[in-house]
């Protein structure tokens, strides 16, 4: 340790920072954490566009059944199932996780703890390569005979285990292989994140000096690692059911289809918090910077996040209230599910307390962070109706559920991403995004998002079931067509507004105002190096850390922020 300490503070840099790299080693086979973060982010954005395109195709089918969708064609029944299944799978495994955890985790962890890279750069590269392969396999599953898998992202057997039922003999296996590869990529990445945060912190950075976003990403990685194991075992079983004809999930041969549901949701519910926590962390950092205030009760937020993670392992069966589980178990899981809303509500209150009395700057990232809080509250509150087994029996598998989880996942994956990317864009690329375009994009996205999903709550409460190809065949539901058309129109508006973001992104990349080291006047370590940081991050030697991450508006100081790396002896005498 002592040896490492002296090496760093004297800036004897092991990397060959000025060495010219070839295109391949710089962009494709890089082991640099920032480049891997960019690879994850751009892959995630491409997958988000694919997932968005899928939602466009099936929403058009619902609004205008049977008509040819511009840019897609007529959506057949099998294709409809494959589209909704893969829309869900892509948005969770290939958008939310790579962008929130892998892209921001890779970019921010070394920069925010004052290190030159992750502790295992080559494992990091391997993680991305496996992830990329998984994305290729998933997309390939659409182009095999039989088409893509259509058994929902939850892949319940027997529909998923037998080609006789799913009619997609190759598609369902490729889907499963892609998901399994994605898990491997995130296990490798997660081990890297956890060990890096544990071991590679700058000298002086104690547990409570770590920026909240890093804690959240690492807690999420631990949750993922602790919950995904049984599903990996389940995926092996399902794979063998599909390919070599075992009967793990076939009740006719001594198997049990409910077993899959348990294995899936034992992972599936913690997974919600795996993606939620990084978004909460991004929001925490942004609201501190733009309200120029210390995070209200840092330690309580941290311990609450840990508690949420632990409780999230005891709620999974609330997805199975109507699956034939013991009603006494339904009682238990109702109680645990209602309990888990308490820590999350508490964290939201602490965020609002951080805003209180702050000197608030409504920049684009701040707008996204505030929108996260507002929209996520709607998602959380509608969850209460579904966590309580009594009302869930009515709401189960309706559009109410669908609207509820889009009100949680949209704030997490999309709002969280936009908050993070607008905040760290200057650090990533050295230039500022355009604020006016950013605000137009923000309002266009937020308003149209609500316009999509509020009608779906109404439809769900009216009894509209999920995963139905054409509601015109149901006399009781056919009359609600106007709401479906409204939601689809709002989706078109929302997708159109994303063009503004892409335009802003590309133009700012080339022509944006140069950002300088610290455009937001933030106090965490990533803002103390150049933008974008060079290979090795701090060419003049890695920083030390002297204080917590959110020392804003400290009384008696000239600047309203106090960077973590400034030694205390420069402070004015008390």
């Amino acid at each position, binding site marked *: *340790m002592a040896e*490492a300490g002296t*090496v*760093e503070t004297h800036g004897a*840099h*092991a*990397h*060959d920072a000025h060495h010219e790299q070839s295109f391949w080693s710089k962009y494709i086979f890089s*082991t640099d954490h920032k480049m891997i973060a960019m690879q994850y982010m751009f892959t995630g954005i491409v997958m988000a566009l694919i997932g968005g395109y899928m939602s466009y195709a099936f929403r058009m089918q619902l609004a205008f059944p049977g008509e040819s969708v511009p840019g897609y064609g007529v959506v057949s029944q099998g294709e409809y199932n494959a589209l909704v299944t893969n829309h869900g799978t892509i948005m969770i495994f290939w958008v939310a996780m790579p962008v929130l955890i892998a892209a921001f985790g890779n970019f921010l962890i*070394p920069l925010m703890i004052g*290190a*030159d*890279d*992750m*502790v*295992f*750069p*080559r494992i990091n590269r391997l993680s991305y390569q496996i992830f990329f392969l998984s994305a290729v396999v998933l997309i390939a599953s659409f182009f095999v005979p039989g088409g893509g898998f259509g058994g929902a992202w939850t892949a319940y057997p027997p529909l998923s285990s037998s080609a006789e039922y799913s009619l997609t003999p190759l598609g369902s296996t490729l889907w499963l292989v892609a998901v399994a590869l994605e898990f491997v990529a995130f*296990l490798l990445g*997660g*081990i*890297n994140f*956890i*060990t*890096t945060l*544990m*071991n*590679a*912190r700058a000298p002086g*950075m104690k547990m409570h000096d770590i920026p909240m976003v890093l804690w959240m990403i690492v807690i999420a990685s631990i949750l993922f*690692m*602790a*919950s*995904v*194991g*049984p*599903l*990996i*075992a*389940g995926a*092996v*079983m399902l794979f*063998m059911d599909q390919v*070599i*004809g*075992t*009967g*793990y999930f076939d009740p006719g*041969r*001594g*198997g*049990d289809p409910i*077993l899959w549901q348990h*294995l899936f949701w*034992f992972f599936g519910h913690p997974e919600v918090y795996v993606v939620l926590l990084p978004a909460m962390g991004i929001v925490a950092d942004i609201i501190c910077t733009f309200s120029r205030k210390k995070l209200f009760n840092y330690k309580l937020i941290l311990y609450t996040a840990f508690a949420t993670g632990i409780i999230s392992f005891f709620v999974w069966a609330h997805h199975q209230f109507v699956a034939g589980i013991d009603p006494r178990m339904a009682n238990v899981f109702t109680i645990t599910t209602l309990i888990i809303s308490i820590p999350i509500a508490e964290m939201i209150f602490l965020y609002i307390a951080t805003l209180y009395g702050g000197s608030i700057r409504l920049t684009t990232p701040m707008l996204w962070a505030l929108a996260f809080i507002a929209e996520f509250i709607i998602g959380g509150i509608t969850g209460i109706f579904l966590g309580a087994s009594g009302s869930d029996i009515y709401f189960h598998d309706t559009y109410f559920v669908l609207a509820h989880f889009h009100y949680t996942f949209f704030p997490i994956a999309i709002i969280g991403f936009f908050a993070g990317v607008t905040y760290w864009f200057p650090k990533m690329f050295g230039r500022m995004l355009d604020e006016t375009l950013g605000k137009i994009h923000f309002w266009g996205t937020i308003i149209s998002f609500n316009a999509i999903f509020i009608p779906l709550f109404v439809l769900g409460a009216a009894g509209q079931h999920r995963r139905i190809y054409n509601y015109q065949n149901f006399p009781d539901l056919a009359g609600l067509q106007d709401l479906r058309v409204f939601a689809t129109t709002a989706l078109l508006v929302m997708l159109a507004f994303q063009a503004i973001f892409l335009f802003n992104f590309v133009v700012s990349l080339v022509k944006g105002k140069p950002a300088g080291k610290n455009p937001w006047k933030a106090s965490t370590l990533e803002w103390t190096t150049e933008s974008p940081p060079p290979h*090795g991050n701090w060419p003049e030697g*890695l920083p030390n850390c002297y204080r917590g991450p959110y020392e804003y508006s400290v009384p008696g100081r000239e600047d309203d922020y106090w960077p973590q790396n400034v030694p205390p002896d420069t402070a004015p005498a008390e």
Partner: protein
Amino acid sequence: MSTTRPIATTRSATGIPTGKLAVWWVIGSEIVIFGGLLASYIMHRIGHPEWAEYASHTNTWFGGINTFVLLTSSLFAVLAHYAAEHGDGKKAARWLLATCAGGAVFIGIKAVEWTGEIQHGYTITANGFWHFYYTAAGIHALHVIAGCIIMLIIANDARKGKELHRVELIGIYWHFVDIVWIFLFPLLYIAK
């Protein structure tokens, strides 16, 4: 592959070497994978008393000898670590090869055992018990093979006196693979 390690890799804020920390996290993630599989098996086993009859066709002798082989190879891994701690890379490499040989014997016995069972019609598709029998032992066998391959790479470095700290890391992993077998043996062979 002569990449310079980043400074980050040489830091140790917890006092635990980074490589060792990572191996423990790998083992943590493996525990939940095997945990999920074995919990599923145990639940099924409790729900299906008739599986005891299927389990009676497994050969406890094969399982017992394999347990002995694997535990002995773990002893060799400890001796390799002991040699590496004393800076004797050549000796450490030899003990690692002995450990590896133990793994190879384990796989060989397994191959003979499975061949006999498959010839008697107890294939993986026969029924629920045999599903789990081949899946659990098969995933474990893949871990044995992976461990052997990694061990050969480490032994090759250790022979030249390089990366001696890795001898301990593969040892930790090998003990874990052993412990998994210690769970599988009673669950699949002894419980009848």
